């Protein structure tokens, strides 16, 4: 059942410009996803910045993602956009046509009453009120929480007939983000952890691989590693 639901997710290449969810529909999906999410110490030390339909801004976001890819290729191979083998990453195209984009950043998260009492009474420091800690040393823990809430939102969206896609390729340098996104670019802004798009898919990434014959040539071209690479069952005591 959940496999039927989450198994439906396909990475979007282009969203449909004619079929756009309303703000109310997006909010409902987010509320449901959030209600189903867990977080260490109930801190939910992340924030969803929800960007609605705006083609100009979406193109800027795409440029931030593609720009990062260009930087990485240059650092790794010395290639540039002028190089013969340069091509845009079509896995990022969903950002251009997405009606809704979620930029998920860390946030300063005060403790709830339980943890405030607990930390105060034991003389422990609540680190999630510390901007520096959140922006540098807590990104991994927040990343797990973000992954879980993103998947809950994915389920809520898919159940309502919408598509979502993810992106984690973008500039790490806040100065390269536009000033119109101050929650990132300002001095106390946070680098995003994940970018997520939502809308109605018109063309999917796998279809492109079908069109150019890649999947026919090699059905395992872009598939997950073998189960045994990821999982190790430990049999019996070592002692």
């Amino acid at each position: 059942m959940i496999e039927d639901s989450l198994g439906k997710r396909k990475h979007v290449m282009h969203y449909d410009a004619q079929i756009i969810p309303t703000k109310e529909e997006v909010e409902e999906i987010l509320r449901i996803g959030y209600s189903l999410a867990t977080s260490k110490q109930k801190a939910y030390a992340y924030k969803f910045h929800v960007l609605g339909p705006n083609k100009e801004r979406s193109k800027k976001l795409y440029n931030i993602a593609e720009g990062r890819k260009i930087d990485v290729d240059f650092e790794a191979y010395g290639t540039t956009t002028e190089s013969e083998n340069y091509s845009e990453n079509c896995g990022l195209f969903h950002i251009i046509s997405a009606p809704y984009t979620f930029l998920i950043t860390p946030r300063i998260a005060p403790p709830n009453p339980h943890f405030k009492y607990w930390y105060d009474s034991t003389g422990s420091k609540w680190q999630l009120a510390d901007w520096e800690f959140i922006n540098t040393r807590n990104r991994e823990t927040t990343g797990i929480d973000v992954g879980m809430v993103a998947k809950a939102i994915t389920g809520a969206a898919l159940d309502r007939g919408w598509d979502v896609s993810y992106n984690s390729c973008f500039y790490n340098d806040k100065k390269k983000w536009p000033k119109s996104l101050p929650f990132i670019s300002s001095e106390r802004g946070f680098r995003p952890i994940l970018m997520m798009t939502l809308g109605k898919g018109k063309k999917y990434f796998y279809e492109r691989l079908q069109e150019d014959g890649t999947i026919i040539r090699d059905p395992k071209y872009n598939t997950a590693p073998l189960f045994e690479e990821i999982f190790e069952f430990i049999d019996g005591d070592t002692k």
Partner: protein
Amino acid sequence: MSIEELFSKRRQIRAAWDYEKIPSKELIYSLLSRTLNISPSKQNLYPFKIHAFGPDDENERRIVEQICCLYTSGSVNNWEESPEFIAQNRVSKVQKDAPWVLVFELRKCKANTFVKEYGEMHDGGNAQNRFTQIDENRFREGANKTLSAIETGMFIKCLAGLCLENNLAISYIKSFPEWTWKGQRSEYSKNRNKVGLSWDSLPQITEAPLIVVQIGYKAAIDDLLATNVNDPSRPFLEDKPSIDEIVQFNK
């Protein structure tokens, strides 16, 4: 059952695991295998590894339990279970030992076909220059660890859905000594555990641990250490922030 109804059933089990009814290795294997089919990963590389300790691995599960104890008290822990604690809670046994314990750790990936071809297209096959997930010198760095954490979170959420469909409980633990990669020294800086054990006590773990997941059936008893998430009349209410603190709509 809708996805809301399914995930709403989940409760963090802390002291109410069923010791009589144990999920089989075949069931856990099947759930993990099916999760891999519905969980996404950037470039399909899955930069994490899962060590599954089951009912036969009692020694290892004892060790993990003592690693996940940064403090002697607290709702997650209480691992020493002092006579005073037991008397205070009027119980003879605190059932906090799940039959299955999964330890997620960072993993250096192998290049898949796409990654290999990308490397060949740009630099004679040196794909590790481009993809940190497969680069021995960089896969432990912070950016890749965060990516691994996001994908681990997505994987766990999918696994939780499958567990709940099978009436299994699933709990998460992030209270353990962290490992942080120090690139200049080419070694992990390993936090020590002041009251319990450290990850070095478990030789299977060689890369940074990401999260510990417990799976089992819930016993038909009250969970003495259960979280109070919605009853303001009881002490220690662990309520969520309002959604308006988490979601900001921008024009």
